[in-house]
């Protein structure tokens, strides 16, 4: 192989090793012909390996493109028959009835309601837990509780759904009058417990990462421990805490099984947590389980709903990514 161009050789020769050479004329004796034992190998195996690995890395891009293409294409079919005005203007969602309505608001309301309840549960508990773990917990307790939280985050959501339906809702019915068997409150609370580890764990990382010098500066000014934590440490970790909350919200919006099992299948535009509702995700499950023929507008609704879901979580995830980047760079606000 004696082609004149430089071959990117994975051993590091793809650094422009001899890039400067053309412009210079170094002194010294003229070089001899390259002896065979120094020549580049014939095999292009290195290039092949590089290519295969590159393709592996591309799979993630292809996945994203695939998601977007699938959702957009099927949604386009849907919006060819249902106008955007109806989608965002109608207040009813009844694609399976004779009298069809395709207003997204009831599903959106269901999703937002359960998410709101989840955040109301997870935010105070998660933040308090994070501050306690990072600032006050003895090291030994911390070492036990953090992995316990991680396992908590890994419990299958179908299990949480079962808890919501068979234990939490009946227990709530004893205190909340008029609470239906399917409702937003029970699954919302259980969802809060589900996202609590995300908020607690990521916030704890952020608080733990606040440099000791800041704490010491505060102590040196005569501030007490509690004051230091709330006036100096927590505000400094704000980016990381914010990112953790956003990620928690994103998880709650996309959460499927808890609400599919325990919240009901009745899309309705309400913020009453006691009555059955339906979230966007639960609706996709409902259609997937049914026998709606493919290619019909009813079937395509799940892709339109999926697209909304995808866009909502995407915006939140990118916001969280930005915030975390800022935290890692050491920005304090």
């Amino acid at each position, binding site marked *: 192989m004696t082609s004149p161009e430089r071959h990117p050789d994975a051993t590091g020769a793809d650094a422009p*090793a*001899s890039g400067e*050479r053309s412009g210079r004329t170094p*002194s010294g004796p003229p070089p001899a012909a390259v002896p065979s034992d120094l020549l580049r190998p014939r095999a292009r195996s290195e290039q092949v390996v590089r290519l295969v690995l590159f393709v592996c890395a591309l799979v993630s891009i292809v996945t994203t493109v695939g998601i977007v293409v699938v959702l957009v294409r099927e949604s386009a079919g849907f919006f060819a028959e249902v106008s955007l005005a109806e989608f965002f203007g109608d207040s009813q969602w009844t694609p399976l009835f004779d009298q069809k309505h395709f207003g997204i608001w009831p599903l959106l309301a269901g999703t937002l309601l359960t998410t709101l309840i989840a955040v109301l549960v997870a935010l105070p508990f998660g933040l308090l837990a994070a501050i306690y773990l990072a600032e006050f917990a003895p090291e030994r307790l911390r070492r036990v509780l953090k992995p316990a939280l991680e396992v908590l985050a890994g419990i299958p959501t179908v299990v949480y759904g079962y808890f919501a339906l068979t234990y939490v809702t009946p227990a709530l019915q004893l205190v909340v009058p008029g609470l239906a068997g399917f409702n937003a409150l029970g699954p919302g609370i259980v969802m809060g417990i589900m996202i609590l580890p995300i908020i607690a764990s990521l916030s704890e990382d952020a608080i733990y990462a606040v440099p000791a010098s800041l704490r010491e500066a505060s102590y040196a000014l005569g501030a007490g421990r509690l004051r230091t934590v709330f006036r100096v440490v927590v505000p400094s970790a704000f980016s990381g805490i914010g990112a953790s909350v956003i990620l928690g919200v994103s998880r709650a919006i996309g959460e499927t099984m808890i609400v599919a099992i325990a919240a009901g299948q009745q899309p309705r535009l309400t913020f009453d947590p006691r009555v059955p509702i339906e979230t966007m995700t639960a609706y996709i499950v409902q259609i997937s389980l049914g026998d709606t023929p493919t290619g019909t507008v009813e079937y395509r609704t799940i892709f339109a709903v999926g697209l909304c879901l995808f866009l909502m979580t995407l915006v939140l995830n990118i916001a969280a990514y930005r915030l975390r980047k800022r935290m890692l760079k050491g920005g304090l606000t």
Partner: protein
Amino acid sequence: MDTVLAAPTPTPRPSGGLPSPTTTAGERAAALAAADAVARPTEKMSAHDLHAWFGKAEALKGITLPLLERRVTAIIGPSGCGKSTFVRCLNRMHEVVPGARVAGRVLLDGQDVYASQVNPVRVRRRVGMVFQKPNPFPTMSIRENTLAGLRLGGEKAPDPAGLAEKALRQAALWDEVKDILGRSGSGLSGGQQQRLCIARALALEPEVLLMDEPCSALDPIATARIEELIHGLRERYTIVIVTHNMQQAARVADYTAFFHLGELVEYDRTDVLFTRPSRQRTEDYITGRFG
């Protein structure tokens, strides 16, 4: 010293040969002066107007330096002077670091190792290297470590056991490890690990051996053993040793090059450089006025 030299030797030394490793540094220097005055050894490697960069920072500013065959050349200088960068350029290891660049020529037997058709992997088979910190492969046994070069190069040795023994003997490690060849190399002491790394390089039968501060992580006793080893290896290999320790350079090297701020300040026979340096900067350094 002269009397020792003048004394009749029972066996004639091989042509172009050097005194046996048991002689002292002083005797050796004198003998070398005599031998190299008659016939200057060939340049096994040489650098010509060699420049090297890390990103925008220029680490080497045009080095031209011969490396004589079967001689030990020491590179000395204060830290940051480019001495490590220089040896890493010799076997094209410099370019492994992201953002690193090289310009100029490095000849190995008259062949420019930076020529466009040259495979850096091939260069490194002929120009072996030992690093500052002993770095045996933790997932391999002592025997596998010794033969790692062949295995990683995808070759099969005809007699792996024999080759491993030979390399370990050359590195003066055989007697200490011959019964534990199957154990991990990580269990050895620092000095033993470094000799294992030397054995690993020697198993490939290189022509040049680059040693980048091989003793800086070792205690004095382990250092002495490595230096002894270098005395033995000079018979067969062209050795380049980077050291921040001037006494070490004086002990092991035939020739010494003094680097400062990326430039070659002075290059001469070791005894000359340390006793009669021709540059002020060299004298300041070896007398400890800076660095």
